């Protein structure tokens, strides 16, 4: 039970409380920094504060991802706007000493660098700012106001309409228009409907959803609740992979706190509207990110996809209409309702609106999480935000979209990152993983790696994906071991075409993409392997008979 006044009071009180501190020390407690001991750094800082008796003067707060994961543990000092990188337990005393004075130069991480300047945050606006375990902190950043607006001030149709106008497209991979999906589920008949959040982030190298759930879980909950209002659902599931224990803990905490406040659960904001959210853990199957497999898994069955149609929008969980969106998609909803669909549509390019969160990984200097407007060029992302290639080696390719995506060569560096351009180049936006590769990477070996991933993650239901991926993998393995023949390239082409066009679900249909794109752009490397039995990048373990023959 909660009114808007009460909600705003909570936010105001929280803000006043925080602003009452002269200094606020934010320690990143998302998985990246936690893995390099940011938890101990936070403890040390708290101890140091109490040792000096500064509890009423200085706050130490755990916050979500600050972005530059490669430089963790990260600590930011507010309201001064100073960021420290690579902070260790022993730095606690120095940090407190410097409060109010000049920053510690050996730890300082410039916020002026393009990594921070070039970002435009919608999804990540609260990341690194609020305590992910405090609902009050979220409310102090206008949290749950959009839900109130959607529920009390708008009709469900108006909510759907704003999402349609925003031009938001599914951030999970395929880029299906979110508004259209919502319209379909809203139109589906029946009084029982479900809203499902797909948090089964399985692409190697992708950690956008994890960071959002660890840093700002309430944003996802609010997005789901607004979706429930719009389509008329009263039950929600978050399907989250069990490999993300911290995200699981934070989202469960968030649900419990939101329920206690009455912003999730029964009779939200004193209306008859109820929305129950449960967490379901995935057991580590990539295919469960496919929506029908995900639904089967929530129902307690083997996570295998089924042929569509019927689509989940009309025949989803236990046969009821179900709306499935990805974490990042839901995270965009509250700002769209708060600021309007037109505002969102003004960001981005063409049919790709808003921003996109990318996880930068691979041979790039700054690895971490970035959010940029759709249409930002790869060059800006890699060379400005990413700081260029490690060791200043030569850029060779970027793999976007995970194992379902493609590898793009240098000539696409100035391409705008949007759904259409990527698809045209033979890759996909995917969930937003970007793996940057330098000249030391062998593209045949890269293709082999991704196909191996798809082969072992194939559910085994349909024949082309089950057997075809194994055949493609065997062929690539042979080629990278120096046993390839020129005719293997035709065979690869044929197998890829077969698997792509005849597989049952998206996993199989996109599994050949890494092979097809590398064959398209790096055919010479394949030919060097099959004709001359050499690997131009010297990355493959070739057998010695090629050298013997020379």
């Amino acid at each position, binding site marked *: 039970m909660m009114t808007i006044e009460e909600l705003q009071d909570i936010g105001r009180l929280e803000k006043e409380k925080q602003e009452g501190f002269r200094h606020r020390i934010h320690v990143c407690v998302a998985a990246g920094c936690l893995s390099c001991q940011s938890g101990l750094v936070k403890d040390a800082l708290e101890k140091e504060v109490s040792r000096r008796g500064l509890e009423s003067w200085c706050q130490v707060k755990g916050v979500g991802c600050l972005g530059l994961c490669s430089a963790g543990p990260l600590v930011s000092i507010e309201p001064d706007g100073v960021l420290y990188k690579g902070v260790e337990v022993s730095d606690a005393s120095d940090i407190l000493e410097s409060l109010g004075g000049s920053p510690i130069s050996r730890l300082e991480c410039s916020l002026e660098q393009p990594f921070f300047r070039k970002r435009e945050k919608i999804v990540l606006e609260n990341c690194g700012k609020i305590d992910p375990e405090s609902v009050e902190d979220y409310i102090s950043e206008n949290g749950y106001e959009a839900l109130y607006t959607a529920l009390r001030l708008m009709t469900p149709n108006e909510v759907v309409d704003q999402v349609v106008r925003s031009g938001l497209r599914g951030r999970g991979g395929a880029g299906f228009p979110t508004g259209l999906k919502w319209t379909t589920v809203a139109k589906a008949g029946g009084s029982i409907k479900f809203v499902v959040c797909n948090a089964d982030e399985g692409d190697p190298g992708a950690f956008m959803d994890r960071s959002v759930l660890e840093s700002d879980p309430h944003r996802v909950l609010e997005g789901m609740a607004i979706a429930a209002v719009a389509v008329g659902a009263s039950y929600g599931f978050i399907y989250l992979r069990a490999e993300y224990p911290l995200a699981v803990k934070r989202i469960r905490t968030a649900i419990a706190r939101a329920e206690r406040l009455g912003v999730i659960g029964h009779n939200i904001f004193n209306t008859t509207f109820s929305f129950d959210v449960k967490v379901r853990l995935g057991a580590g199957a990539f295919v469960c990110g496919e929506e029908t497999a995900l639904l089967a898994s929530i129902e307690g069955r083997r996570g295998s996809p089924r042929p569509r149609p019927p689509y989940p929008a009309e025949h989803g969980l236990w046969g009821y209409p179900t709306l499935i969106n990805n974490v990042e998609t839901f995270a965009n909803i509250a700002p769209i309702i708060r600021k309007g669909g037109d505002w969102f549509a003004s960001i981005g390019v063409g049919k790709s609106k808003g921003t996109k969160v990318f996880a930068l990984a691979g041979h790039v200097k700054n690895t971490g999480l970035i959010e940029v407007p759709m249409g930002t060029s790869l060059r800006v992302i890699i060379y400005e935000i990413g700081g260029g290639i490690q060791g200043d080696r030569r850029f060779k390719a970027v793999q976007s979209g995970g194992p379902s995506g493609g590898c793009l060569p240098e000539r696409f560096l100035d391409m705008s990152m949007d759904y259409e351009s990527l698809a045209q180049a033979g890759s996909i936006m995917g969930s937003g993983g970007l793996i940057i590769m330098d000249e030391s990477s062998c593209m045949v070996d890269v293709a082999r790696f991704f196909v191996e991933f798809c082969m072992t993650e194939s559910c085994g239901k349909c*024949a082309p994906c089950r057997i075809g*991926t194994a055949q493609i993998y065997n062929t690539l393995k042979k080629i990278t071991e120096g046993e390839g023949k020129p005719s293997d390239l035709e065979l690869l082409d044929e197998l890829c075409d077969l698997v792509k066009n005849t597989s049952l679900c998206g996993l199989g249909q996109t599994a050949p993409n890494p092979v097809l794109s590398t064959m398209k752009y790096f055919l010479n490397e394949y030919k060097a392997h099959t004709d001359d039995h050499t690997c131009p990048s010297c990355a493959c373990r070739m057998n010695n008979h090629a050298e013997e023959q020379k």
Partner: protein
Amino acid sequence: MRPPAFLQTALERDVHPVKVVTFKIDDRDVTAREDETILTVARQNGIFIPTLCHLEGLSERGACRLCLVEIKNSPRLAPACVTIPRQDMEVITNSERVQNYRKRILELILTERNHVCSVCVSNGRCDLQQLTVDLGITHVHYDYLYPKHEIDATHERFSIDHNRCVLCLRCVRVCDEIEGAHTWDIMSRGILSRVITDLNQPWGSSETCTGCGKCVHVCPTAALTEKGKSVAEMTKKRQFLPYLEMMRKEELR
């Protein structure tokens, strides 16, 4: 205008009139009830579409992909066994494109396990072997995978040879849907998938298996067989399926 009085009781009683659509398969005009698939209608009209995982009387899986057909103006191929025709849809079952894909898929299936027809109890009585004839497969141009698979002959009357299994899961479905025992299921994933009895216990020790043998008889190959059969002796008897299906429908009425 109101229908004449003599029709009114009849019309009131018929609350769910069955809808029908007319569409085309290979340029022939055909009619389907709203719940019939392209495959059903094709078979009614004597139009050949190959299938492997499909078996009349069991739920559809859409997994073997041999029944893929083209639908005019749609870039995607559709599995005929689960696709419901729409009015005026134009289905093409025999284009070179789908025929090629079907052949290649069947070739892949032949490479997956160790199928040796000449020493097989189902030689001459095997759905998989028949499909190679139907689709005109003269040889397999992919490399055979030669996996190592076991035979479980612990059951008193039956045995399972995983070397012959095509993972159609007819056994799993018949056991669950018709017999109601759910002894069979599937474990692992991808190329390592295989069917199991009772959480991967030896079939002979299964406490849920009723020994009905339905799985053996729906199996398209000699993966599931009766013991004591020699080469080419294993005939599968499937008459029970349409019979049970009919009787159960009667009961529901």
